């Protein structure tokens, strides 16, 4: 049984999360403030931590900082603070993911799974093959035309696959719709069209846990699309 520690000063939220995680077959440990979380982390073999920021005694940010001094377990911050700056802060001090309240329980569970996979089974993946491209948990094998996200296989159409491959190969670079079109269809783009954009939305829906807050395939509004370099 995989131990997951859930820490929030709101008992009902912790209980709800417990219900979802139990359904997925995880064992849930509960804490209600930062100090308690740190204490329980030491006492139990915890594989993942879900933690609120605003808590009594020790808040989530300080707790994360302390935990990161000795532990590398995945930490998902669960906070009502939805500002960009809050997210950036949380991720920078060592959290692996940031989910804002109110959250979709299924999304949270998906993120828990994803983080666990990365931490347990995919952590030491070594890519030697030239035909394999990886960005974070997204792996593309050009030989087999297989795509996996955190180990889970994803089914893509050929056009979607080519678009994703283009972006993953050039991770970090922004492609405009016209550039993508010219690369994939090998013809000159005549006028703006949203065909490519629709394809990309579809890809995003397939590979992202929350397509509105994508991790890999990001929209650069008014410019184009890019795959985040990780």
């Amino acid at each position: 049984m995989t131990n997951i520690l859930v820490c929030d000063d709101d008992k009902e939220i912790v209980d709800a999360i417990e219900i979802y995680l139990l359904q997925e077959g995880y064992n849930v440990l509960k804490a209600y403030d930062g100090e308690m979380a740190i204490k329980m982390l030491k006492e139990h073999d915890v594989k993942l931590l879900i933690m609120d920021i605003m808590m009594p005694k020790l808040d989530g940010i300080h707790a994360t900082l302390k935990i990161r001094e000795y532990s590398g377990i995945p930490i998902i911050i669960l906070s009502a603070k939805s500002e960009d700056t809050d997210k950036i802060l949380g991720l920078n001090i060592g959290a692996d993911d940031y989910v804002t309240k109110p959250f979709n329980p299924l999304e949270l569970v998906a993120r828990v799974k994803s983080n666990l996979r990365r931490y347990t089974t995919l952590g030491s993946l070594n890519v030697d093959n030239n035909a394999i491209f990886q960005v974070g948990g997204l792996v593309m094998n050009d030989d087999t035309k297989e795509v996996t996200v955190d180990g889970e296989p994803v089914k893509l159409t050929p056009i979607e696959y080519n678009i994703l491959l283009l972006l993953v190969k050039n991770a970090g670079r922004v492609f405009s719709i016209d550039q993508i079109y010219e690369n994939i269809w090998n013809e000159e783009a005549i006028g703006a069209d949203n065909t490519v954009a629709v394809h990309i939305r579809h890809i995003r829906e397939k590979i992202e846990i929350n397509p509105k807050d994508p991790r890999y395939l990001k929209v650069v509004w008014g410019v184009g699309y890019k795959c985040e370099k990780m």
Partner: protein
Amino acid sequence: MNEKRGLHKAVRVMLRTIQHICFTCIAVCCFVLIIGTGVRIEGLHGNDYYNLLSYDSGNAFEDTVLTNTILGKDVSDILRYATIADQLETDGKYDPKKSIDIVGYNYRDADLPNEYITANYYLEDLLKWGKFGVQTEPFDNRYKTVDGKTVEEIVNTQEEYDSMVKHIEKASSDLYTNYKEYLVYKNYYTAEKSNLRYCIVKQTEGATFLTKKTTYFTNVEGISQGAEKPQDVFNGLMSYIEYCPSTLTYNTNTSISEQTFRGLEMRYSYAYPDNVQIWIGVMDPTETDVYDEFSQARIIYDRFYGILYPCLYMAIFSAVLYGIILLYLTVKEGRAYGKNSGKSVLSRFDLMSTEFYLILCAAFVGAVGCLIGIYGEVCTSDFSWLIQNLDENYVAVGVVAFFVDIILLYLYYSFVRRCKTGVIWRNSIVVKACSRLVDYCKKIFLNAPVAVRVLVPFFLLVFMNLLAPIIIEPAVTVAILIDLLVAGILFEEALRRTEIVKGIRKISDGDFTYRADVSKLHGSNKELGDAVNSIGDGIKVAVETSMKDERMKADLITNVSHDIKTPLTSIINYVDLLKRERIDNDKVNSYISVLDEKSQRLKQLTDDLVEASKISSGNIVLKFEKINLVELINQSVAEFDDKFEEKGLRVVLNNRTSNPYVYADSRRTWRVIENLFTNIYKYSMEQTRVYVDLANSADAQRVILVMKNISANSLNCDPNELTERFIRGDESRTTEGSGLGLSIAKNLVEIQNGHFEVQLDGDLFKILITFPVYTEELKPGIVTIDKQKAGKVETAESESDTTEEMEF
């Protein structure tokens, strides 16, 4: 030394006392110099008065005017004395039996008539007759000549008789007068009683033609006895005069010129033949113990020159010391000593009115003037009294001067204190009255109606201009000058008014911190300036208050929504759990779905609320960059592809732009488009087309985005109201949506310097958005939107800003 610090009272009193003493010294010294040099000398003719100061400074005694004046008098006396003596004496002795030819005597200084009758009388007879007077009628025989003849016996006619009687009368009276003088001179100019030495040597014909007889008229014993020569005697004297007309000799060491001497001698020329030799000299009075004019003069000379320089130096020294102390005390006066150091100190006297003070000063000056005048009068009218009581007068002058100085300095220092504190001006009854009057006039004038204020001076000016040429020429000049002055004042006023107008314009343009400079304004302009400034203040306060309120509201909404989120999370989660319970009861399931739907709306509403309040309060950071609006629309349409399909909405994109690049924050712009598409998705009639037109404005400065769709419900509201917060097309608010979408979109467009407009034409719902096109001058950067300074680009790099925030 600190100028502001005062002096200790004791020091001040001491310095003042020194001043009084100095003043006393000056007064006494001056008095001594002026009055004390007056001298009285008792001489043969009574008392003579001299004033030494005016002439004799620096001269030796024998060269002083005093000595020379006395000598001159004496010379005159001696010449007369010798003449008289010649008439009365024989061989140096008074000779009563001397025979006098009366006609010859009477004509002694004139030529004798050609024919005349004369008679000789004895000197004593003539003197006797002179003393008692000559009885002319009846002429008895008392008057007998030397031969014993009577007058009748001599004369032949009555005329001759009358003439003879007159001669007798004149000669006897002259001789008697001379005889009296002779006695005085003889008594005075003796060697024992006088320092004067004289010697008159005459060569007279002797018994025979060849034997010449030399007569000496002298008071020098040695000479009369023939033992000494006059030259030797007189050349050794302090002063001497040697006169000998026959050899043209005139030697002297005095300041009496030959001309003066000759003038004196000429009066008695009959008595001094050409061969006469005259020596007159003065013994040094210090070497003799004779008391005469010279010895008196010498005593006075010694006394005067003994005190002249000490007095003078004393006076100068005192004056300098007085001046220095005066200066020092003037600087220090009126400053307190010790604790209150630096503060001004005024006595009760200083606080009395300036006029009273001035009257006192005038009275004091008058009194001192009178005192000096009366005293001067007394001194000049009775000089001998002054000379006799000199010491008492010194003391009196000193004492009076001391007290005069006390009053003088008291008044002076009061003046200094008054000046330093400005009391002299403030406490003046006249000044007070004037300023009262001016205030009163001002009050009347300022409270007068505008008509009076403007028209009265105007008509005065006109009247003066019309009247001036009628009167006189200079009045025209005055009128022109006044006109020019008025022109200047009007120009100045207009200039100031321009300043105020500038201020008003600035404030109306939004620069609420601008303040008109009212320091140079006056009158109505000042009022105007003050009013403008207070309006500016008011607006500034109002703007600040509203900004603060807006921000507080935003903070409140943020905090409240944050607090709402936590329980909302539980609600959403437990509703979801309920949904999973596979309840068979349809009723319960429908309840749960309502709960689910409403909790989701609540979530959306909370997020929108925070965003809307943030944008409208300006509490937002913008990251401006170059974005392709056409690309963005394409991307957005792709995002909404599913949703639109679901409702049968078809997007018709019409791109006519030549330059689709705009300068905006890409994520915010996406938010705008997202909100608008969501709006279209929610409120559009199903199975209709949505038109999205993109074009450049005519001046190519802006990109215009137009979205058109057909509303499902009829919209009976004002299009502008739709962009207000919480206004929705359906008043019943049954559909989902927070009612904030359009409001957020509009605010986001406007803070990016864009323009947002909603148009309604029947069911056609039209949104017009314009953005400024991207130009090279616009650099990408982060902008903190603050309503007061909208649009200012911070030059800070976009990255550095975020990293700073990330550091913990």
